[in-house]
């Protein structure tokens, strides 16, 4: 824990915000208050938090179907997120995107994505723009272990290395793609083994340890900013709930024991214990954080519930950007 207390408390805050948002979303979904699919980030909070804490608002990220965690970690606004999940006009995407497309361009969050792996090439484009402008910004592509089996990931990783772009590939290896374990879909154990095939450094970190993730991210981001090119971070992590929805135990594809074992490594609670043990913060400090953001969640839910639905006249709006073109010369 070589980071200043402020940094550590910031990491904690990001994780707590994700957890609270996701648990609330889960409850709302169980109460049939959220339409569509819901892929919760609970259990993986240390990854998005540890990485995004190394970024500024000008550093852009691309995300996955499991994207709320990334947006919250980037500073996403609960109200607009909750409203979007409910399909309200006040949501981040005016109700047009929902959970799988949630975004905030001002925060550099280029959208959750419903297509596995498809965010990675877009992050390459963002990183290209950074290098092109020489603005010192970097891009981060988040993706799962399963996503590394799809062509788009491969092309993005190789192109980023070929063009030496300022980008970090952040893999959330939670050992499953939907309901299928990793060993059915690849013959390797560590995603990081793919890095050398592109010519970039790769590192494995404990994805349940936000400090370890943050350390690795700070290093990779610094390398990218300094013109050192891409790198890959593989965070070993686990989702506590189901692939989508909230059911966790009792589904046949993972044993209850496995889920319980990982839950004992809860990234937030273990972090709090370590901080308390190290005398950096007290239980009361943490409780204050939870309380603050719990209130913010309640506020966001109320805001979202009271918000108007979009109206059908808006269906065909926002497809194209309108601009006046000049006329043909005579």
């Amino acid at each position, binding site marked *: 824990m070589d980071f200043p207390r402020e940094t550590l408390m910031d990491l904690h805050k990001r994780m707590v915000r994700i957890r609270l948002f996701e648990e609330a979303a889960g409850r709302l979904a169980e109460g049939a208050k959220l*339409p*569509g*699919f819901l892929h919760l980030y609970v259990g993986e909070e240390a990854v998005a938090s540890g990485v995004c804490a190394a970024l500024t608002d000008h550093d852009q990220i691309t995300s996955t179907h499991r994207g709320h965690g990334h947006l919250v970690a980037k500073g996403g606004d609960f109200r607009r997120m909750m409203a979007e999940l409910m*399909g*309200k006009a006040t949501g981040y*995407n005016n*109700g*047009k*995107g*929902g959970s*799988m*497309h949630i975004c905030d361009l001002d925060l550099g969050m280029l959208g959750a*994505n*419903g*297509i*596995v*792996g498809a965010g990675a090439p877009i992050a390459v484009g963002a990183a290209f723009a950074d290098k092109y402008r020489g603005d010192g910004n970097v891009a981060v592509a988040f993706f799962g272990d*399963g*996503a590394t*089996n*799809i*062509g*788009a990931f491969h092309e993005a990783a190789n192109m980023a290395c070929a063009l030496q772009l300022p980008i970090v590939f952040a893999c959330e290896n939670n050992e499953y*793609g*939907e*309901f*299928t374990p990793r060993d*059915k*879909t*690849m013959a390797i154990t560590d995603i990081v083994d793919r890095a050398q095939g592109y010519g970039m450094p790769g590192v494995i970190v404990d994805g349940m340890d936000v400090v370890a993730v943050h350390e690795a991210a700070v290093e990779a981001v610094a390398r990218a900013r300094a013109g050192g090119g891409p790198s890959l971070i593989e965070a070993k992590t686990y989702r506590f709930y189901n692939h989508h929805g909230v059911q966790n135990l009792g589904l*046949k*594809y993972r044993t209850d024991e496995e889920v319980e074992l990982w839950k004992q490594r809860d990234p937030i609670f273990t972090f709090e214990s370590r901080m308390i043990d190290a005398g950096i913060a007290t239980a009361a400090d943490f409780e204050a954080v939870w309380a603050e953001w719990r209130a913010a969640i309640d506020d966001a839910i109320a805001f979202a519930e009271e918000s108007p*639905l*979009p*109206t*059908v006249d*808006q*269906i*065909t709006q*926002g*497809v194209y950007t309108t601009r006046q073109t000049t006329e043909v010369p005579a």
Partner: protein
Amino acid sequence: MSEERSLTYVAAFNEAVRQAMEADPDVFVAGEDVGAFGGVFGTFGGLQKAFGERRVVDTPISEQAIIGLGLGAAVSGLRPIVDLMFMDFICVAMDQIVNQAAKLKYMFGGKATVPLTITTAGGAGLSAAAQHSQSLEALLCHIPGLKVVYPSNPYDVKGLMTACIREDNPTVFIKHKRLLGMSGVVPEEPYEIPLGSARVAREGTDVTVVAWGRMANEALAAAEKLAADGISCEVIDPRTLQPLDIDTIVESTRKTNRVVVVHEAVKFGGLGAEVAAEIQEAAFDHLDAPVSRIGAPFSPVPFSPALESGYVPDAKRIAAEIRDLVARPLVGS
């Protein structure tokens, strides 16, 4: 009596696959989560238990390689069923479908046989937003070498899926996500519905409604409504979109003289345009009004139910369109 047995759309699909696998050891299934989990829509439920991991194969998230797996195995003599979870994902594997599977036989001078079945799930209505709700049949039907089906009910599901598996050409079988739970009478024994044969789902005299997938059912509901008002609709469900049974459609047009084509896909450039263009060509002198088309507006599928419900055509909109069409005065009158 076995004919009276009722099955859901998804169970009818499952039974077609199961019976085909029992009958032919060369039939196998591959795709994401199709094995232990039985497919995210339950379509392949129980098959791995029945036939083992050799014949029901969980694959990586690699849509291009999934189609390639099927194509290479098909040209090598097996009869693969490969699954792309959502129809939107055909775009991820488009080269293998359009440039490889569809064209391989022809490019080889007709010398190969490609008995490949690609299954997927299309359609909106689950608030699944722009990348999980599309009906992209128009993209596939334009490609010589493919056959495409989009069934509207459990009976057709079983008969068409059986036909697809036995078919010696690449077929794309599109389930509609919102019909998975629909029940209907399904015979127990295996049967085929020939690819390319439309079904006259309801006979009528005033107007022909051509509609497929879930829209066929919406069209039937609209027809029911309109019957009360004395408007008699003939509803045709082409079932197979490629090859398209245009003869049945034209024959009906000659009788009713007015046609509405309905699909869930975006109207512009949708397959409805082909249907309309062919009708006006083949039955020009029989039309009392232009062929009318109903489809989604020109935008991606929106997420919010408040928007999506206005985006997807339904019985109400179909009925209103038919009323307008029937009310259209003849030229000169």
